[in-house]
């Protein structure tokens, strides 16, 4: 029996895992069970025209050219027929079943090794229930200039639920940027539970750009688990623009000395949206650096949650760990629940955390008005200034422009 089947069997035989609800401390602001109880089916039903339209619209909104590597996953199902796989020998997308034959040792030694089914019910449910898994391995020393996009689509005429699973192994010295999009179309009512495990090997430099842009009735649960080896640098840029309920569990394990992690997040909420970002940076070894910047703008009756945990273990001397969460509330009914949690067991560390919540700066607003700028444009200028700090950290100008455009659309 392969390792995947083994792990799945084990979980199913142990206890019954159910969706977390308010009684679970980590989900007290995000009642997943309540969302689940709206009712979702296992089978999807959609027309190929609708799917093609969605893909084309996404390509044009996000400037994905026909030449770029694009891997399409529809409702958790790998669609090689719709994808443009790599022609570059340094990496390729494979189905878990093929990967089990081609790289059995890699799967054996990595699958399920960091995404902890015991620590999170969503991970347990995904691990037990997923059907197809996407495997991506980047070869040692590969410097990838090509743009790589994984397009995760939720689409169905009837309410649908599915699990999607990814395993990404980035070997020694490799460098690349992976763009991961989450989209759906307006009529789709979905419950998508995604688990992605990323292993960053020695001296590799990785940028992860995640854009969550599903429509009004889609619910998205993303569990990203990353572990890094010596001298490597991992950056996650997480943008949440839309969706009904979005819950992100992002865990970075700095499992070796001298590694670096950057977590950047931007969430722009309106109407009744709920976005809950839970992060965990685990400093296990000495001389590591982590920096977290999450910013949000909440309008109407939307709610944001930020819970940022930093663990500094006993051996993690000379740790530098920073965390900042800044929020702007545009309406009296918008809410933010923000909580940093620092657990420090080493004694030679530098850690700081800060959070702020407020309205737009009145002095700045008046200054703009005194020059003839009306409230709408003044607000836009100030909000763009506020959010730019996050997307300025993107690795290249092309991505910055794409995000800038999307933000401009959103603030219009």
């Amino acid at each position, binding site marked *: 029996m392969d390792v995947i089947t083994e792990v799945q069997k084990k979980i199913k035989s142990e206890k019954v895992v159910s969706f977390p609800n308010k009684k679970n401390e980590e989900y007290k602001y995000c009642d997943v069970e309540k969302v689940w109880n709206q009712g979702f089916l296992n089978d999807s039903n959609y027309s190929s025209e609708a799917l093609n339209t969605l893909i084309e619209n996404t390509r044009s909104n996000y400037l994905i050219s026909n030449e770029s590597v694009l891997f399409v996953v529809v409702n958790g199902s790998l669609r090689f027929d719709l994808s443009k796989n790599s022609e570059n020998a340094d990496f390729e997308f494979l189905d878990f079943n093929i990967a089990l034959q081609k790289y059995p040792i890699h799967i054996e030694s990595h699958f399920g090794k960091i995404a902890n089914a015991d620590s999170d019910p969503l991970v347990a449910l995904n691990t037990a229930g997923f059907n197809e898994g996407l495997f991506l391995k980047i070869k040692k020393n590969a410097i990838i200039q090509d743009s790589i996009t994984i397009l995760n689509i939720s689409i169905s005429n009837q309410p649908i639920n599915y699990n999607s699973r990814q395993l990404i192994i980035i070997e020694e010295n490799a460098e690349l940027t992976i763009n991961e999009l989450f989209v759906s179309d307006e009529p789709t009512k979905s419950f998508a539970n995604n688990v992605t495990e990323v292993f960053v090997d020695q001296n590799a430099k990785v940028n992860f750009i995640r854009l969550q842009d599903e429509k009004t009735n889609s619910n998205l649960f993303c569990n990203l688990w990353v572990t890094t080896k010596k001298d490597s640098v991992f950056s996650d840029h997480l943008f949440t623009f839309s969706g009904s309920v979005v819950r992100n569990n992002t865990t970075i394990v700095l499992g070796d000395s001298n590694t670096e992690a950057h977590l950047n997040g931007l969430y722009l909420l309106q109407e009744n949206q709920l976005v809950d970002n839970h992060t965990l940076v685990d400093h296990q070894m000495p001389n590591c650096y982590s920096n977290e910047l999450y910013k949000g703008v909440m309008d109407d009756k939307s709610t944001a949650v930020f819970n940022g945990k930093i663990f500094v273990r006993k051996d993690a001397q000379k740790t530098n760990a920073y965390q900042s969460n800044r929020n702007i509330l545009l309406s009296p009914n918008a809410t933010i629940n923000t909580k940093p949690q620092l657990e420090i067991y080493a004694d030679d560390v530098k850690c700081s955390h800060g959070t702020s919540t407020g309205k737009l700066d009145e002095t*700045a607003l008046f200054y703009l008005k*005194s*020059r*003839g700028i*009306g*409230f709408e444009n003044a607000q836009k200028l100030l909000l*763009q*200034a506020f959010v730019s700090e996050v997307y300025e950290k993107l690795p290249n100008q092309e991505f910055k422009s794409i995000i800038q455009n999307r933000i401009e659309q959103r603030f219009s």
Partner: protein
Amino acid sequence: MLSIKNLKASVEGKEILKGINLEIKAGEVHAIMGPNGSGKSTLSAVLSGKDEFEVTAGEVTFEGKDLLEMQAEVRAREGIFLAFQYPVEIPGVSNINFLKTAINEIRAHKGQGSIEPREFLNMVKEKQKLVELDGKLANRSVNEGFSGGEKKRNEIFQMAMLQPKLAILDETDSGLDIDALRIVANGVNQLKTKDNAFVVITHYQRLLDYIVPDFVHVLYKGRIVKSGTKELALELEEKGYDWIKEELGETIA
């Protein structure tokens, strides 16, 4: 151009302006001087439309229109400009983007279309020279990293770009050394025409050596207690504000 009649204003229930009367015609430069706490900043705040101040009596007419009825941004579009005493820094909002947005909103108010990019850039190049800010503005955020003097020069630069009818300079000279003062004053003098007007609010007479006023008014405890020509400013410089208080029959502590 500007007519202030019996203007009274309070903040947090406390009355600061106790009945201001002032007439300003096009082409004139009026200086308003006064000791600390006399109401100078309150006057400029009320004229520019800051929310925190409550007008309890009086009227202000600008070019025949009721100024107090207008929101701050409308006053600016109608042609009023306030050069702030403490200009705020706005990181992330570029100087250029900010100015372009302002110019276009003012033009829209007048029924004009947006400014052509080339015309705008030429204007920026030209007006920057006026206050010796060449090259300092591009790629920078509003007032970010500017020294006190640079911020004040940026105020005059904006004034040059927006071409207001009435400019209120709120203690523009505070915190400036003699060189910065000269640059700012020179900028203002170059912008003076027979069609616009200036209100120069200042504590010290020094600025008025450079920006010569047609009229000088002394503001004391919320009222204009004395008006005169530029000689009045020199007299104040010589005798101090105590002289005014004595004239009013107050005992000097």
